[in-house]
């Protein structure tokens, strides 16, 4: 049965039951007219005419039904049919035709029919306004007016409609010429076609990628304009929104080329809405597309991301077993790419973990190229060390110090295994990053640094980094010949580079010191003569010190060299030089040190600021032999100088930052220096106050505290927490990210269970100020109030300490590095 018959039947049936009374029929007709449902209104009007009670009073209602139907036909571009209906109405029902307004006739004329109304456009104000309103609100197609056979070429409506169409055609053909340029003149702001003009301009901007301009034009189109639906479609295209119906979809597809981005966006939308089935359907369709040839990486990446994206949905929607099963089903369609099997296995079995088992399986299953094998072995080595660190952290939560010895053994084992993996890696394909990882790991785990650097140099002979590192290693190990041969290699690849040239005088110093230790005084002096007079200041002082020592040892006249040494100044640097002679070359320099010591003491009394400044510069010296890498002076003279208020703030900060290490906290002389530095720093109340307070908190930490200091455990804990809380508050208030990070980082070295964040919330400005005042007044353990110390020295056995630690402990213990680089904090033989 044809559709229209069904509709008509339905209308008839709908009104048949009400045939006894006219009221329901009239009400339904009225409602249809108000809803602009012309087809239904006309059917009901015909029923009304056949009703026995139909009379003249119903004619206006029937006329309204015809008007609505005629308007509907014009809106659907059925101009000819509308014209025929109007003519038939005039013949068959003249009384109804007489009741019609101008509108039906006008619509016929606007649709191309002949008539007198359009001729009066511009002359009859009322009629003109009516036509303008119709064009603005109802004219969905300007073509009938532009091609109207009964309008002259100069008729304003025809001119405007033609201008719109011509400009639009130019836009659609991508060849803007005169018509588009003339559009603003042809269609002014008061023209009923102005909305069409704006739409054409928006379209041109959209086609050429000027989306902002297009949106601005679309915004100016009124909501009741006939072109508004098109404007909305265009707006959705610009916003990359999906089409809302089939017809719009056709237009959308015509303008926007199908893209991977669009398809993935659609999948994202489904995933965001929790529509797993819809997303899976789209995804299946997408992976079946013949677009992935040569794009295996992208395919793998997208599939992996999709699996990660659906994982939460699966978890939510299914039980764990069901989720895995569903994932298995989804993955069936991806198995045409063999390499992806690994990713799938990773996802299913190890929750996409990047773990060693995955890579070992990959090596066994897949035949990888050498480069890939090298990278996998590199990754395996890193994972080996990472896993060991994780295991140790887990263990550390369970036990305290008992496992420390085992920690080191396990750490060393992991380091050795990692080194073997790196050796495998470079056999397949040497990569710089592999050597960087390998070298860094040997430094951390006391591995075979020399082997790693030699392998690096063999693979990349022109790399300066391994040559510099190996030269430093040989110098530190007192193998000058090897160091010299490395330096020659360095010169061959990087002569003139600053770091290479800086090494030259240091090697001379090494050589002179070695010869001096062997009693070859003349040769040592020759080496020192080779050092350029414009060498850095520390080297000049060290050189003068060595000359003076040579003169003393050779038995000659040392007056000139002593005078030169004294005039060089910086007695602390001379002290460092003599200390290195003692520690590195095993020389007995007690006589020289006695003199140097006296000069240091003199300077400490006369110019403590200069002494601390020298110390700070020494702490910043980067060298394998002559720096403060292994020992640093911290005797009473130095500590007293560090407490002096005239010392420069920058020197205090540099010194504290350069020398502090958590492993030094158990050494009383080192702690004395840190008490002095933090106390002096806190008196400045400068931007570094949060950091000084954080360092101070660590000094109160009772667990690593030196044995001759006897803290009250609970009171010291409280002081640690308070200092950290104030430090955090000040750091946050300062807005310096550097301070926040420093305090956070230092708080991780704390051994006792504290919760500074909770305490920070209770702090007031007044409390913070009083804490700073209190701590600034403390420059040594002796200044600490007695209530923080145990009144009677109780011998606490190691087991008691562990028990107490276990009771108190709430947070994991940070890993403690082996005290390999700790200072010989108390150097009684030198002071």
């Amino acid at each position, binding site marked *: 049965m044809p559709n229209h018959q069904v509709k008509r039947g339905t209308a008839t049936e709908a009104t048949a039951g009400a045939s006894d009374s006219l009221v329901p029929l009239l009400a339904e007709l009225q409602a249809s007219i108000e809803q602009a449902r012309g087809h239904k209104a006309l059917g009901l009007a015909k029923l009304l005419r056949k009703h026995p009670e139909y009379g003249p009073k119903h004619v206006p209602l029937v006329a309204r039904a015809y008007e609505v139907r005629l308007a509907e036909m014009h809106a659907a571009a059925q101009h000819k049919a509308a014209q025929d209906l109007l003519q038939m109405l005039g013949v068959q029902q003249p009384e109804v035709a007489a009741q019609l307004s101008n509108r039906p006739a006008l619509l016929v004329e606007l649709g191309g029919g002949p008539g007198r109304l359009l001729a009066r456009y511009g002359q009859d104000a009322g009629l003109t306004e009516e036509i303008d309103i119709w064009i603005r609100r109802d004219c969905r197609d300007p073509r009938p007016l532009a091609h109207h056979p009964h309008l002259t070429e100069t008729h304003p409506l025809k001119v405007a409609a033609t201008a719109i169409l011509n400009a639009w055609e130019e836009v*659609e053909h991508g060849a803007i010429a005169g018509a588009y340029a003339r559009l603003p003149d042809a269609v002014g702001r008061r023209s009923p076609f102005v909305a069409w003009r704006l739409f054409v301009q928006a379209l041109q901007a959209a086609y050429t990628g000027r989306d902002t301009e297009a949106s601005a034009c679309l915004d100016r189109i009124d909501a009741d304009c006939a072109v508004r639906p098109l404007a909305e479609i265009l707006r959705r295209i610009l916003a990359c929104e999906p089409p809302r119906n089939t017809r719009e979809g056709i*237009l959308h597809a015509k*303008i926007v080329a199908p893209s991977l981005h669009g398809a993935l966006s659609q999948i994202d939308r489904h995933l965001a809405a929790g529509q797993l089935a819809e997303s899976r359907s789209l995804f299946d369709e997408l992976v079946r597309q013949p677009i992935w040839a040569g794009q295996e*990486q992208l395919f793998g990446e997208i599939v992996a991301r999709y699996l990660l994206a659906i994982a939460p949905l699966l978890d939510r929607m299914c039980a764990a077993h069901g989720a895995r099963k569903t994932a298995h089903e989804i993955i069936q369609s991806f198995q045409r790419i063999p390499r992806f099997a690994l990713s799938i296995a990773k996802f299913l079995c190890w929750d996409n973990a990047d773990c060693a088992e995955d890579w070992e399986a990959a090596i066994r299953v897949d035949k990888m190229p050498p*480069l890939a094998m090298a990278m996998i072995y590199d990754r395996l080595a890193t994972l080996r060390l990472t896993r060991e660190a994780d295991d140790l952290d887990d263990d550390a939560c369970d036990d305290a110090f008992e496992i420390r010895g085992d920690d080191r053994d396990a750490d060393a084992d992991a380091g050795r295994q990692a080194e073997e993996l790196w050796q495998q890696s470079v056999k397949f394909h040497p990569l710089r990053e592999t050597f960087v990882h390998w070298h860094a790991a040997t430094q951390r785990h006391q591995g075979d640094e020399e082997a790693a650097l030699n392998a690096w140099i063999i693979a990349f002979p022109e790399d300066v980094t391994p040559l510099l590192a190996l030269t430093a290693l040989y110098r530190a190990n007192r193998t000058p010949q090897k160091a010299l041969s490395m330096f020659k290699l360095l010169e061959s690849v990087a002569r003139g580079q600053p770091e290479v040239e800086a090494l030259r005088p240091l090697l001379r110093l090494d050589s002179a010191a070695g010869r001096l230790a062997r009693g070859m005084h003349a040769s040592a002096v020759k080496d020192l003569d080779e050092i350029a007079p414009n060498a850095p200041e520390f080297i000049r002082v060290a050189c003068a010190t060595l000359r003076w020592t040579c003169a003393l040892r050779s038995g000659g006249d040392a007056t000139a060299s002593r005078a030169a040494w004294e005039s060089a100044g910086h007695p602390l640097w001379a002290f460092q030089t003599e200390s290195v002679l003692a520690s590195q070359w095993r020389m007995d320099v007690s006589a020289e040190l006695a003199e140097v010591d006296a000069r240091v003491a003199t300077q400490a009394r006369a110019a403590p600021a200069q002494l601390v400044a020298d110390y700070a510069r020494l702490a910043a010296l980067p060298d394998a032999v002559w720096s403060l890498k292994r020992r640093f002076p911290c005797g009473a003279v130095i500590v007293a100088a560090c407490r002096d208020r005239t010392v420069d703030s920058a020197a205090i900060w540099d010194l504290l930052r350069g020398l502090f290490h958590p492993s030094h906290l158990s050494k009383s002389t080192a702690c004395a220096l840190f008490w002095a530095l933090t106390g002096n720093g806190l008196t400045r109340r400068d931007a570094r106050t949060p950091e000084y307070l954080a360092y101070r908190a660590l000094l109160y930490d009772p667990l690593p505290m030196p044995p001759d200091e006897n803290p009250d455990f609970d009171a010291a804990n409280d002081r640690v927490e308070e200092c950290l809380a104030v430090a955090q508050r000040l750091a946050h208030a300062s807005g310096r990210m550097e301070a926040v990070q420093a305090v956070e980082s230092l708080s991780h070295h704390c051994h006792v269970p504290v919760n500074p964040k909770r305490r920070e919330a209770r702090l007031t400005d007044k409390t913070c100020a009083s804490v700073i005042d209190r701590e600034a007044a403390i420059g040594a353990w002796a200044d600490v109030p007695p209530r923080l110390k145990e009144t009677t020295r109780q011998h606490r056995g190691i087991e008691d300490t562990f028990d107490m630690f276990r009771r108190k402990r709430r947070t994991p213990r940070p890993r403690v590095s082996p005290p390999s680089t700790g200072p010989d904090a108390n150097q009684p033989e030198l002071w």
Partner: protein
Amino acid sequence: MLFPYLTLGVPETTTDEDVRRAYLLKIRMYPPEQNPDEFQRVCEAYELIKTEPARTRLRLFGMPGMKPGAPLADLVPKPVASERRRAGVALWIETNMNPP
């Protein structure tokens, strides 16, 4: 981050020279003072695939920053607006005669 091969417009079987050529072409197209975001994307893409080890790393370990919940569409570039096709007057008007 976008898939670097699509950003630079080179195939996955590319060479160092082709990547560099594509990179230079792109940064000429998108100067930093005019298109800072696009310039940034091109530079990031270049860093990811400029050498063979880097490309192998990408193949083995995937794109950096992959995490659950990251939109899939972030992986590929949006269609360029200036590449929109033209529908024609008739199709537009036909759609307007039967508005949604």
